[in-house]
């Protein structure tokens, strides 16, 4: 949270009272995390940008229905997660794989960077090959740093279910890293 801009709840109150521009603060605050989540869910930066943009517009339109403004973050992630599910449902089966795509991180021109990118590609492929619900659980836990309680608010799943998904995802990724050695 940036000093002087207020809490999520305060900004939401400003937006709801007609200050449209205040919504920009919320975008700035959560854009990177939402984009990271969507990019890893969809395996495509362009599709992720679309999903996040659609989610943010949807959130703005339905801001009055956000029952707990203090938990705007999880509400917002839930909306983007649903946009990602819609994108995945529209996409042909098997399209999640990043086999034909360059790594999302920008490549650098050194041997070490090449090795890192090679490993990153393996990780991205392993993540893309996970079932969407396991991928979602891993990304929320380890990339967006959510607690299981927050993940439960985002996904609507029970905590033991989410733990099991995260565990399976960790094991699959670790196996992918072992293969690369």
């Amino acid at each position, binding site marked *: 949270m940036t000093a002087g801009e207020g809490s999520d709840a305060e900004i939401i109150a400003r937006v709801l009272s007609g200050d449209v521009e205040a919504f*920009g603060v919320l975008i700035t605050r959560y*854009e990177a995390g939402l984009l*990271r989540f969507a990019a890893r869910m969809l395996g495509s930066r362009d599709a992720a940008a679309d999903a996040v943009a659609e989610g943010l517009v949807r959130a703005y339109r339905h801001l009055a229905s956000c029952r707990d403004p203090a938990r705007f973050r999880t509400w917002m992630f839930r909306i983007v997660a649903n946009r990602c599910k819609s994108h995945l449902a529209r996409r042909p089966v098997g399209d999640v794989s990043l086999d034909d795509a360059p790594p*999302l991180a920008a490549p650098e021109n050194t041997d070490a960077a090449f090795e890192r990118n090679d490993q990153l590609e393996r990780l991205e492929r392993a993540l893309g090959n996970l079932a969407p619900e396991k991928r979602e659980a891993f990304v929320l836990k380890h990339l967006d740093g959510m607690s299981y309680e927050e993940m439960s608010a985002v996904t609507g799943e029970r905590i033991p279910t989410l733990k099991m998904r995260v565990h399976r995802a960790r094991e699959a990724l670790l196996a992918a890293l072992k293969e690369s050695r």
Partner: protein
Amino acid sequence: MSQDLDPRIHRVLDGELDRAALRPDERTQVERLEAAARALSDVPAAPGLADRVMGVIRRPIRSPVERFRQWLTARHPVTVSLRPVYSVIIAVLLIALLWRGPGSGPAPLLGEHEGVAQFVARFPEAHSVAVVGAFNDWRPEATPLSDDDHDGVWDARVILPTGSHEYMFVVDGERWVSDPMAGRYVDDGFGRQNAVMEVRPGRSE
């Protein structure tokens, strides 16, 4: 193939157990997963995303009526998938609808100085009836009447210039008969009476 990790590794990764409780090789696995998560966290920004969203939400929301009006007037792509057999059936039905027999369709488009003349006569014993007049050079084969339901009532609709037209019926190709129902007659100069029809713009008599 993935293999089950020791539950203590998961507990450390979930923040429920201190990593000091792990063996060195187990700690290595934790560190590798943490490094993997850091690598995957690096996603480039999407320039212009915030502007794109703000551009949309700054636009006023149109009312449902306005959205419906735009839906009605905007062009929409429409895709219809049909099995070939249905395409053929629809094509046949369309052809049947468009290709209707003479006299069965709506009035054809008329010129400013044209009207539709309807000739009707009752000849129960006739095998053919035609109408002749100056409009078809008195040729019996030019304008036949029809009796589709064989009730002895013959009729034809013909587009003619507006004004008066003398005419006669020709029954069975040889018998010239005046229209007994005509409103007016004129002498044809050969001892018979030609019927006279007044054709008015755009309508039949």
